[in-house]
């Protein structure tokens, strides 16, 4: 300490010797944490980790509470971004080239078929898992105050996911793509007043062609992902600001410290103390939280590895479908939309307006309004709470109805949309 003058001749050499360590410490502020203080600072001094709170409630980590569905949706989106960017290097959004490029993806591009499989199955997976996440949030009453608006953002995210999937569906430019988009955009044409205009602007022409392919491509690879990332950021940010994930009432607030007869302790506000909300812990009150590092991170890592593994295995064994090239003279019979729109298509076969615009519009409007209509505060944070029997029953009925329509549309409809049995 007090002999700097003696070491001065060696200082340049010392700097050289310590260079690797200095570089390392300039990038990573903390060693692998071994104390609570280090665990805390690992979470909030690392760019990638500071999205996490320093501590999380134990309930948040219960696998059977969240089932990791929101995380899984996020990781599927991550896989879609990575595989999608790679596919962009070989794809051309042109009616004369797109289909050939799909064939090349199968034949000549290294890992092309595998990347396309991953992209396709992750897209299907994301729609499915995002919907399950919505169901989880509903059945645990997690949309209630103060999380109403995050539910609204979640519903918008689901709609953006569906639109992403819909725009991606056209890009292979095969028969499936062409006719599914022809049918899908015609449904948009049934919207009152602006329907036909909307369809024309969406397609850039009166029917599906080069303009539509280009427009859907730009929406799919640039516009919608940007919207999605922005909304995801708000969705995650609000989880923190709304007091973390929902949890049962009895654990929502920390036990108050008995104050009678005790000298009032001057409160010490940590960084978290400035966050408003009903669940903020201020001062040293007992709670039921654990440090995010390593508890939350390990849980996230587990979900990540699980998601990637499932997609990898599915992509190894199942090839993404590619039908005949577009032939505008011969629609396949029946022409079916992707499975998550088959419930819609089934309803559309009864009435184009009510099946395609009226009923779905009403259902989406109901989804948006749910947290503002259901104002009870009981039964939050538990699956199928008795207090929420009515709400859960109505929601479950709607889910089952939709699933039934999807099953009918998928398995029980044959040529000319006549009723057939799948066996």
């Amino acid at each position, binding site marked *: 300490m007090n002999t700097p003058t003696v070491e001065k001749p060696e200082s340049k050499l010392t700097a050289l010797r310590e260079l690797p360590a200095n570089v390392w410490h300039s990038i990573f502020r903390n060693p692998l944490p071994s104390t609570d203080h280090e665990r805390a600072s690992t979470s909030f001094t690392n760019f990638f980790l500071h999205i996490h709170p320093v501590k999380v409630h134990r309930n948040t980590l219960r696998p059977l509470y969240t089932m990791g569905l929101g995380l899984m949706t996020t990781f599927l989106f991550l896989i879609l971004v990575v595989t999608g960017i790679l596919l962009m290097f070989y794809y051309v959004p042109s009616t004369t080239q797109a289909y050939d490029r799909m064939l090349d993806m199968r034949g000549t591009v290294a890992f092309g078929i595998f990347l396309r499989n991953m992209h396709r199955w992750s897209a299907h997976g994301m729609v499915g898992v995002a919907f399950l996440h919505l169901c989880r949030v509903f059945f645990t009453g997690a949309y209630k105050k103060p999380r109403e608006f995050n539910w609204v953002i979640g519903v918008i995210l689901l709609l953006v996911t569906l639109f992403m999937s819909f725009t991606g569906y056209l890009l292979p430019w095969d028969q499936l793509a062409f*006719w599914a988009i*022809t*049918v899908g*955009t*015609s*449904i948009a*044409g049934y919207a009152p007043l602006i329907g036909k*205009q909307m369809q*024309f*602007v969406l397609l*850039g*022409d*009166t*029917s599906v*062609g*080069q*303009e539509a392919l280009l427009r859907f491509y730009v929406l799919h690879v640039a516009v919608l992902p940007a919207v999605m990332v922005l909304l995801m950021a708000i969705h995650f940010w609000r989880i923190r600001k709304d007091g973390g994930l929902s949890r049962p009432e009895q654990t929502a607030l920390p036990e108050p410290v008995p104050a009678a007869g005790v000298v009032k302790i001057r409160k010490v506000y940590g960084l978290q103390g400035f966050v408003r909300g009903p669940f903020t812990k201020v001062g040293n009150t007992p709670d039921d939280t654990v440090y995010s590092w390593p508890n939350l991170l390990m849980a996230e890592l587990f979900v990540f590895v699980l998601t990637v593994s499932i997609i990898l295995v599915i992509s190894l064994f199942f090839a993404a479908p590619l039908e005949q090239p577009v032939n*505008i*003279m*011969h*629609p*396949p*019979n*029946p*022409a079916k939309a992707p499975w998550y729109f088959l419930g819609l*298509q089934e309803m*559309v*076969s*009864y*009435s*184009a*307006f009510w099946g395609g615009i009226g009923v779905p519009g009403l259902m989406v409007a109901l989804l948006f309004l749910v947290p503002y209509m259901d104002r009870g505060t009981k039964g939050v944070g538990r699956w199928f709470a008795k207090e929420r029997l009515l709400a859960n029953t109505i929601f479950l009925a709607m889910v089952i109805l939709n699933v039934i329509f999807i099953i009918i549309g998928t398995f029980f409809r044959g*040529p*000319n*949309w*006549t009723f057939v049995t799948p066996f």
Partner: protein
Amino acid sequence: MAGVVRSHDRRPASADDKVGRRRLLAWLSSVGLAGSALLAAVSDVIFFKPRVTYGQPAIFQIGKPDDFPPGTRIAREAERICIVREGNRVAAISTTCTHLGCSVGISDTGFACPCHGSRYDQDGNVTGGPAPKPLPWFKVTLAPNGEIEVDKNSTVDPGSYLNV
């Protein structure tokens, strides 16, 4: 009230007239900003609505009347029309399903859509399925070069034929 000056308020106490001007300016700026945003939104819509389309033209010639012998119903699938010739009369009926835009095929009784099972009679009237409207008839004229010209931009009453 007017005489109260809070410690962080740097305005002189006698500047009540300035408050009025400030509020007016703030209001004008807000209106300007909101108006600009509205204009931007409108110009977006104008931008995205194409002024030129590159697909199938709406007015086109399909051949001489002799190419369509009397009594035939010939579907021209690329143009999505069906040319009906009865005696000396010619008409063009749309083959785009009025339900959801699939191509309808010619069937024994008229037209049938493979997508959702809509059925039409020989004149394009709906006989079954979810189709909400009959198939439109397009305006047909004889061009100076002797070819039949179809104009998909203008529809005519069903049953209106062109004598050739």
